[in-house]
């Protein structure tokens, strides 16, 4: 069943929904990347929660006008209007009052959501038809989604992607260095506004699929996942799109197989699995790489200290150090150095002596600051400089 779902064999409607969700996921990952680079990831949380009163009001207005309260474009328009108002309020609070951004986000989020809940209870008590259907905006559902809805979402996702493509340069510059962007003639305020507009569009489009509580995950988790793999900004944006699209696709397909599998949470958990794998496996930033780096550092410290101990004829009692030196053929099991070990120890001692001379000389302040008892002096000084240094050294002793 799941395999059929993943290969799009559950019928035309399910296929359409899965493709629409995928496009939405790509748009969310890509848009969220710029938000993440701007260090404003949690603004999306306020945006998504602030859609609720707009949805409620739109429903009430549409019913009052005698229409169907669940007409999707109408609901999306209401959602966009109220989350737009929320964004303006956050900007106003940060500029005009002493509140910081997190407080402004939290205030807008909770108050708008509270007002939305009030409106939902109003709708529940309205006699105009079944209110069923509005609950799905909280957690999202693709079950019973109409073809036209899927098309609206897919088309919206495509438009968002196109706009991101057009605006990627200024958004990147503003994300990395807003001051530089302002100096070089970019209108930072307008670019921020455009970025927020795109975030709002993704949020509004995602309400029916992912639900407004969890859409924020689709804007945050894929960019963070992508960030683990690369330091190149546009590659990160593209990768975030892939992660977002893949998560949304898997989530929509899997949830189509059973009614008790709500779409939003599955999409979020799918993206979390990708994130968790990246946390472990990613080069440079992943957990495994971190452990490997630490072990390597430990080995270097032990090797160096072991060689210095050999150089002055001390016995090595540390088992790890001894094992390390034995493995490299520098010492025997009883701790006596081999010929290669004697040579390496003499080299280490000479290195140490050169460093000591270097650090005693104020003229070499900058080079001396690189001393960490591990770095070889050849990587800091030129051969000429080392020769100059050696002329002032006491004659090196041989290692017995």
């Amino acid at each position: 069943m799941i395999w059929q779902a993943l290969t799009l064999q559950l019928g035309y409607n399910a296929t359409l929904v899965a493709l629409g969700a995928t496009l939405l996921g790509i748009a969310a990952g890509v848009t969220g990347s710029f938000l993440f680079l701007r260090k404003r990831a949690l603004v999306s949380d306020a945006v998504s929660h602030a859609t609720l009163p707009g949805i409620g009001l739109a429903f009430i207005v549409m019913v009052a006008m005698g229409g169907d309260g669940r007409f999707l474009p109408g609901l999306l328009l209401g959602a966009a209007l109220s989350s737009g108002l929320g964004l303006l309020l956050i900007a106003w609070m940060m500029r005009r009052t002493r509140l910081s951004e997190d407080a402004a986000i939290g205030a807008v989020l909770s108050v708008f959501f509270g007002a939305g809940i009030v409106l939902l209870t109003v709708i529940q008590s309205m006699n105009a038809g079944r209110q069923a259907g509005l609950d799905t905006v909280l957690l999202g559902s693709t079950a019973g989604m109409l073809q036209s809805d899927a098309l609206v979402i897919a088309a919206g996702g495509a438009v968002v992607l196109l706009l991101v493509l057009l605006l990627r340069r200024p958004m990147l510059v503003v994300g990395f260095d807003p001051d530089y962007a302002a100096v070089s003639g970019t209108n930072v305020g307008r670019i921020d506004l455009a970025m927020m507009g795109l975030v709002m569009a993704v949020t509004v489009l995602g309400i029916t699929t992912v639900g407004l509580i969890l859409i924020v995950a689709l804007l945050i988790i894929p960019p963070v996942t992508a960030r683990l793999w690369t330091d190149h900004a546009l590659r990160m944006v593209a990768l975030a799109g892939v992660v977002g699209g893949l998560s949304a696709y898997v989530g929509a397909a899997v949830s189509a197989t059973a009614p008790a599998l709500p779409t939003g949470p599955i999409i979020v958990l799918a993206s979390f699995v990708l994130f968790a794998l990246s946390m472990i496996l990613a080069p440079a930033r992943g957990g495994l790489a971190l452990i490997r780096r630490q072990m390597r550092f430990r080995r270097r410290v032990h090797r160096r200290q072991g060689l210095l101990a050999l150089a002055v004829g001390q016995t090595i009692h540390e088992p790890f150090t001894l094992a390390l030196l034995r493995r490299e053929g520098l010492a025997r099991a009883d701790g006596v150095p081999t010929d290669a070990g004697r040579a390496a120890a003499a080299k280490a001692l000479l290195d140490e002596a050169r460093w000591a001379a270097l650090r005693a000389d104020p003229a070499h302040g900058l080079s001396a600051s690189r001393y960490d008892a591990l770095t070889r002096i050849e990587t800091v000084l030129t051969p000429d400089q080392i020769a100059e240094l050696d002329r002032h050294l006491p004659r090196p002793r041989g290692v017995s």
Partner: protein
Amino acid sequence: MGAEFVALSLPPLLIGILAAVTCALPGNFLLLRRQALIGDAISHVVLPGIVIAFLLTGTIATLPMLLGAAGAALLAVVLIEGVRRTARIEAGAAMGVVFTSLFAAGVLLLEQSDTSGVHLDVEHALYGNLESLIWLDATGWASLVDPVALAGLPSELPRMALALLIVCLALWLMWRPLAIATFDEGFAATLGLPVRAIGLGLVMLAALAAVAAFDAVGSIIVIAMFICPPASARMMTDRLGAQVGWSVAFAILSAVLGYVAAGYGPLWLGFENSVSAAGMIATVSGLILGVTMLAGPRRHPAGLARKG
């Protein structure tokens, strides 16, 4: 204003007030430390905690629920810090990754498990059931001194009162070091104060408030009360003590006005049904914040001159 009020409105009103104040108190410090959104994160992760506690014990008894929620809050704090350090990303994004994932896991567990026999669903988690916390044994004001009737009070009331007591006590004990660490962490560290432990203690205190209030009133009030009353109080004063006092007053005002508006407002307007009290309390706290932001004596950002 007779027997009906005591039985139907007094307990939820009191619980609402207690929950609001319990959350607003630690909220003051979270706001000043720019950690206001910790409350948001905690109130989301409480859901998986209580769902797992329910799956393990099979009941919705109070103690396992509280333990599960507190465990989830602690796990979330540890995970956020771990993600932030390992991946070297900003705290907001780390928070967003962790709390949305945990919340999604909670929702999925809830949908997959059979909770039809008990009152446990996502809507309940979001906006609680304040209106249903009624006192069936009450016959009038006299019941307030009648031990038999008092035994029938909703258990949320004494629990919330206990949580408020613990929060007050902890803040009273931690006041000076907490205030110093909040305003100048570096200075606090040079004084030898355990700044990390103080920060963690504050977060745990917030978690306690969130967990206790969550069960009675839902997470939406929790988030609103962590932020709105302290933020309103910030507009009124520059002194910490006064700010805490103002925030308590605003929290009480929000709870009372919100509850009354939700319960009676629609009736006055000619509708038949009342609306969500939790949502209304959050809305009222936002209106109060709006008023103080427009007219509070200390509303201006630090950089702008105070013109009046």
